[in-house]
């Protein structure tokens, strides 16, 4: 017994593990990302046609949230090397030495398997399978493969972030309908202009250059990034109105988002046209701030319509 203790004492604490606090393990779950996932998944649950027992809806949300947390932990496990050289992420539990990579991996895998099983067995199998695919997509396709390979990494990462409302929807209906694809497309198209505006404003490109991650502003330059921000913002306008064609939303959503979509395009145009000086920086900051609020309002409008009882349009598609 004493021999084992002597051997354990010789292993540096950071390597042997067991140093992490409960707070460190919670940080591995990326709570801020998780809160957005819970909100969008909840909207998916509410927007879906049909009903689900409130307790099962709670279980579905819990499983989706834990699945998102698992993806966050696995992302921090794999990206520990680049997190360590970036200011924004250097204090995360793994690069800071509070949690070992193997602890993060084990934690993430257990939560991923647990959340998929709970959703698949207690709610419905397709929802569980879709959650499993979401975690696989985020870790294997985005984090391990394409994040370090292509400047379109944000577009691919955006797809992973767009799945939660679809998983929420499928938890109710048991099928992937056009309505759920419409919600997916909104987040998918919103992510690039939102994140690239932040990249241009906060000048986090230096961090990514040091880490060797080919972010679009680093690889293609600020001009091309501004052009793509404008293109995605133009595309986002019709995409946001797509739920009206699938019979998911009513007049309030359509009216409000027609106005909000035009404001989004105006902000994107300002980012595109103002290239130099403080004005250009402010334009990026304003687009980032507006786009954050925009996504919340778009999804909150769906909830508001259900709460007030505004009827959805008859579906033209689907």
């Amino acid at each position, binding site marked *: 017994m004493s021999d084992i203790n002597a051997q354990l004492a010789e292993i540096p604490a950071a390597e042997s593990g067991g140093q992490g606090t409960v707070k460190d393990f919670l940080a591995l779950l990326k709570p801020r990302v998780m809160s957005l996932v819970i909100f969008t998944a909840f909207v998916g649950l509410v927007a879906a046609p049909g009903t689900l027992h409130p*307790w099962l809806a709670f279980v579905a949300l819990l499983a989706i949230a834990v699945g998102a947390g698992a993806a966050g932990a696995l992302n921090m496990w794999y990206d520990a090397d680049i997190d360590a050289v970036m200011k924004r992420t250097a204090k995360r539990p793994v690069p800071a030495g509070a949690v070992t990579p193997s602890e993060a991996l084990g934690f993430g895998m257990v939560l991923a398997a647990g959340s998929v099983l709970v959703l698949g067995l207690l709610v419905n199998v397709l929802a569980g399978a879709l959650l499993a695919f979401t975690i696989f997509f985020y870790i294997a396709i985005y984090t391990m493969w394409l994040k370090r390979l292509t400047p379109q990494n944000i577009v691919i990462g955006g797809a992973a972030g767009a799945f939660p409302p679809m998983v929420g929807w499928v938890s109710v209906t048991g099928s992937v309908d056009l309505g759920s694809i419409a919600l997916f497309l909104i987040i998918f198209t919103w992510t690039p202009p939102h994140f690239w505006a932040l990249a241009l404003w906060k000048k986090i490109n230096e961090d990514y250059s040091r880490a060797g991650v080919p972010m679009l502003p680093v690889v293609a330059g600020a001009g091309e990034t501004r052009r793509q921000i404008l293109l995605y913002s133009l595309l986002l306008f019709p995409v946001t109105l797509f739920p009206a064609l699938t019979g998911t939303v009513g007049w309030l959503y359509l009216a409000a988002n027609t106005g909000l979509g035009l404001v989004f395009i105006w902000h994107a145009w300002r980012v595109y046209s103002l290239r130099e000086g403080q004005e250009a920086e402010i334009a990026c900051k304003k687009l980032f701030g507006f786009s954050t609020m925009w996504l919340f309002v778009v999804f909150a409008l769906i909830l508001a319509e259900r709460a007030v009882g505004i009827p959805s349009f008859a579906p033209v598609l689907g």
Partner: protein
Amino acid sequence: MKDAMTNTPFGPEDMARRKKRAIAMAVILAALVVLFFVTTVVRLGGSVAMRSL
């Protein structure tokens, strides 16, 4: 028991962290028990009362 504790390579801070992690695990496991129990009741619904004996 006391000897084992004094021989341990873990200091008081390590032990405090371990204790907090153990409590968190216990709470999560208890919550899972409640989760599975209530879900079973919800999914069975009225079928339990209606079954033929």
